[in-house]
């Protein structure tokens, strides 16, 4: 198996290594964000402060997932990105309605 991998173009291997490094950094950041979110809640701070913070952290973390882990930053993902953002847009207006005009 190893001699197979060794024969691969070294430039490509180098690039993939580089990319892998980015992925690990991404992961580390995601763990840190998660930790912050949990700590902020555990600290029992005021909710008008906590909720925007943890929501922002979630959005940033999901952005990392999409762009690095799922490679949306790569070339050839334009249509894909457009449709994902379309879905996100519908998601936002749906959640907005359900939190504002579902009355009691």
């Amino acid at each position: 198996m190893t001699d197979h991998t060794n024969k691969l173009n070294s430039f490509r291997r180098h690039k993939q290594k580089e990319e892998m490094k980015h992925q690990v950094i991404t992961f580390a950041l995601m763990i840190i964000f998660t930790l912050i979110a949990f700590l902020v809640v555990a600290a029992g701070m005021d909710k008008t402060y906590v909720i925007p913070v943890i929501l922002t952290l979630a959005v940033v973390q999901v952005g990392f997932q999409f762009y690095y882990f799922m490679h949306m930053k790569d070339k050839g993902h334009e249509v894909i990105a457009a449709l994902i953002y379309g879905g996100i847009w519908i998601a936002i207006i749906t959640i907005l309605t359900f939190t504002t005009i579902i009355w009691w």
Partner: protein
Amino acid sequence: MSIASTQNKGFGAILWDYLTTVDHKKIGNMYIAAGAFFFILGGIEALIIRIQLMAPENDFISAGLYNEMITMHGTTMIFLAATPILVGFMNAIMPLQIGARDVAFPFLNSLGFWLFLFGGIMLNLSWFLGGAPDAGWTAYTPLSTQSPGHGVDFYVMGLQLSGAGTLMGGINFLVTIVTMRAPGMTYMRMPLFTWTTFVASILILFAFPALTVGLFLLMFDRMFGSAFFDVALGGNSVIWQHLFWIFGHPEVYILILPAFGIFSEIFPVFAKKRLFGYSSMVFATFMIAFLGFMVWAHHMFTVGLGPVANAIFAVATMAIAVPTGIKIFNWLATMWGGSIRINSAMLWSLAFIPSFTIGGMTGVMLAASTADFQYHDTYFVVAHFHYVIVGGVVFGILAGLHYWWPKLFGKVLHEGMGKIAFWLFFIGFHLTFFIQHFLGLMGMPRRYWVFLENQGLDTGNLVSTIGAFLMALGSIVFVINVVYTTMKGEKASADPWGTGRTLEWAISSPAPEYNFKQLPLVRGLDPLWIEKMDGNVKMTPAEPLNDIHMPNGSILPLIMTIGFFIASLGFIYQVDSKAWLIVLYAGMAIALGCMLIRSLKDDHGFHIHKEDLEREAD
């Protein structure tokens, strides 16, 4: 191969061929055939409704049966007739228009069809198993959660199945258009029908999940005792209305956009002139789709969402009139100065413009949220949406059937009968629905099974019923036309209209199994027309003649669907007796087993060899 093999096959072989096919053209034809069947079913239900409302205090059918009729009429027409026929066109025509040999996922395509068909069968099975759903096609809670018997359960499971099928179709078309366009077919060279297929598929992708969730919640409430819509346990019935209309309004555009696409194909061909304002048409299509997703609450103005929400949704709704207007003017301008040929396809298209515009105008009236309190749930609304759905979608389907019949079935429909059918249906349509505007303004509520004498509603309702019978007559003439053409019609040439502009007219009618022997080189918008103007007999090939890779047929989609169908019955009846859980698990096991086989068994398809292709005539 296609011609020779169909002639020599027995009935069993042909049946097996259709049950296992993954060919987009055959699947498209099956969609159209099944859709037509459900259209007739829905039409009969409509006639029964109109007979009941023919005279005041009529007792043709009971109130309960009337509720079942209106529910099944609406549900059948939207989910089982209009949508599948349009999906059938998309399937059969769109790959030809972009110069592709099939859709991206042939297996999934077949699965989508069978899911739709069995969903439709499931829904109609309810007639024989204790009564059809009776909570209206919108199935508003708590009416639908309280509805006794299993009717609404069939509604839930039937729509869940067919909705899943439609979603698969949508994703399939999107991937096909993104990845499989012929060399030179840039986005801005795609025919308008392909564009509207693309945009309608985006709407399917984003709208159907909302229905899926809504149906799941309703299913959990009815079958598993959850409390989403149970106010006693804190539930909220407005949630259903939102979920239903987040799906339901885009669904209207899922229907009308492909119809717009069909008209945009027909006008240029029969006016012998390129489509006026191509790019503005594409832009308008996207605008309609974008706005179409932000207007759903206009169905809910009287729920009490508050003035701010009502105002936002009212303005957004009115804004849709702008891109729609762009389209209307573009069609008129396409015909302006063209050398117009009027045949059945063109008649339906011409009739569409004023009919649909009337529906659009009443739409703007209904969008005025304050005025809507007056119109809401009256026959004015019934008249409005029939003008849009029949005057837009059904006219579009009939125009498309006349226009593409040669490409789908290899024969041209009989012109004389086509025209008779058109005039009967057209006059019947306006007789039925125009007067309903006034019935509504006079205060006749929708969904009531009787009305009283001497309230000024008698004549109007009688006229409406007469119109409905004219529409039925028109439909019968169309069916006779189909039968006659199939028996007697001459074989159509590749381009029977003589002025075909798009790629589907470059290949024989009906299209061969592999569509294009060699993928065509596209040099601009209306590629076939460009070649014609340059004096070429046929498209310039973009590749040398080579072996063509084809997907294998498979019976798995059908078995998988039957598995889900059995499981759905298990879901419905496990409420009565836990023994039905066995049926549920068995059905699921069949379906999941098929998925596993599909996933684990290698399927590389087969090749049609170069030598066989060379032997075959063009």
